[in-house]
């Protein structure tokens, strides 16, 4: 993914508004303009999907591994929670600036920063989820001769899954929003559209709607997966 077309497109957008006497010129909501100009948002939208899905996926892998490790070695919970929380408190703009010398302008910087933000959310939910597994199920499993590994994969993780996936959903929604700042690090995404036409309501609305759509779609995707793999949660007497 290159930056050139984004800039060209954004530049074109600004020129379009100049001298326009119609709805965009009067800074209206301009639904008609939005429909006619949807093409402007297509590439940034998919960049935004990329900037959300990749950090969340990497963050999930890292946080889950940290969670499983801390589940075994309980003393790690406090330092890991502290570390991931500290990462979360770094303002995104500072994070991008701090990373620039290391990863340079572009997607890499954005992905590293956005991944860092997902860690605390997912890690905490993995820990809470595993801690919430009924003790008697674990005891019964151990007493029947499941190895620690079998216990983890057959009992603990499946029972912690709803909590873990809840973390994943929050992380995804948060990342959709944070990725709107990724353009500051030289990555694309809908944030650039917003920034370059911030005075034009129609543009802000269009980008905002797409961000919302993305967040809702990702949430729905994870939720559907969760419902599919946890049929026992819907079973009632």
């Amino acid at each position, binding site marked *: 993914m290159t930056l050139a077309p984004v800039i060209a497109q954004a530049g074109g957008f600004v020129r379009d508004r100049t001298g326009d006497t119609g709805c965009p010129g009067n800074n209206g909501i301009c639904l008609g303009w939005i429909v006619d100009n949807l093409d402007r948002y297509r590439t940034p939208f998919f960049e935004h999907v990329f900037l959300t899905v990749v950090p969340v996926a990497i963050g999930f892998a890292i946080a889950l591994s940290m969670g499983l490790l801390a589940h075994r070695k309980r003393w790690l919970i406090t330092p890991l929670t502290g570390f991931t929380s500290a990462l979360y408190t770094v303002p995104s703009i500072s994070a991008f600036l701090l990373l620039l010398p290391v990863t340079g302008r572009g997607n890499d910087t954005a992905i590293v920063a956005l991944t860092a933000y997902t860690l605390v959310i997912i890690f905490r939910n993995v820990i809470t989820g595993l801690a919430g597994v*009924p003790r008697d199920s*674990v005891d*019964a*499993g*151990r*007493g029947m*001769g*499941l190895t620690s590994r079998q216990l983890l994969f057959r009992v603990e993780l499946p029972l912690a899954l709803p909590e873990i996936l809840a973390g994943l959903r929050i992380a995804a929604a948060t990342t959709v929003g944070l990725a709107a700042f990724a353009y500051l690090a030289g990555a694309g995404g809908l944030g650039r559209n917003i920034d370059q036409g911030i005075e034009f309501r129609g543009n802000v609305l269009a980008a905002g709607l797409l961000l919302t759509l993305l967040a809702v779609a990702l949430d729905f995707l994870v939720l559907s997966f969760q419902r599919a793999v946890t049929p026992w949660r819907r079973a009632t007497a």
Partner: protein
Amino acid sequence: MAAPSALSSAQPLEFRAVTKRYPGTAAPAVDELSLEVPAGDICVLVGPSGCGKTTAMRMVNRMIDITSGDILLGGRSVKDRKPDELRRHIGYVIQQIGLFPHRTIAENIATVPHLLRWDKARIAARVDELLELIGLDPHEMRDRYPAQLSGGQRQRVGVARALAVDPPVMLMDEPFGAIDPISRERLQNEFLRLQAELRKTIVFVTHDIDEAIKMGDRIAVMQVGGKLAQYATPAELLTAPANAFVEDFVGADRALKRLALQRVRDIDLWSVATCRAGEATDAVRARVTDADLDIALLVDADGKPLGWLSERGLTGERVRPELRSPAEPTVELDDILRDALSDLLAAESMYGPVVDARGQVVGALSIQVISHAIGSAAAAVPSAAERVA
């Protein structure tokens, strides 16, 4: 009830000076516990909280490591076996049952067969067999989740899951503790009936002395500090408590508790003269003289009790059906003495006719008879499973 497949023979279990000491604590949790459980018996570990009974049980399947001493299962030290492997061959039932909420009933029961890599058809057949054994309809229950079952049903499934690979030994930690009292009584009886068939060697933990007396072939009373206070049959425990602690733990009503150990058929009943209406009164008078009870019992043509005959009934040549009082309470041979005594007290009666399974009079039970039974310490008491079967 379906017959269990591939019955493995029960194995004896022996605790040899087993001690558990947790680091940083002066007093051991279990202190030199030695006892033998014969194959096929239920050994109840009972005592107040903190007496180490659960710790002792959990050392059998190495959920807790033994500090010193040894536990032999079928003559073989449990320390010589890998914990996971050992546990797969020891049934395990805990108070909260611990069913896996995300697994169906069939999957829950299949846990250990699955670990032992049984093939699918064998597992499916075994699951259905076990569901029938515990009185649940396989078609209806197989695919349900634990949340869809009642507490009693979950408890039964927990037992079925522990029995899945027909282990020679079972560990049960307060298995009926979380069940309401009425269902508990029924589940205990069901389990004893099951045990009469299966004859597993069972270590059963409870804090409830009444449950211990009901379920145990042998009872190990433990006291705080993990010390064994007495190891005896329920009857021995109730007649001859080893020390003040056991006497106190068993309770002041231990003579009454003995009544739960015996059934009416286990004791010598009073003989009773029965008569039918129209019979010659002379013959009846003669029978009354020979009987333990100096009053005749009027019965119908089938020998079922109608009531106690009044003096006026015997005044003529033939017995006239004139009753002094109804035949209440009528006690059954299968009743336990505690219930029979309760019936007598409720009816404010000193004695009552005893009938067999067909309802025919076989004798009379009186408060004197019961009191004599309590007094005779050496009276043979059947095993827990036989008492219910």
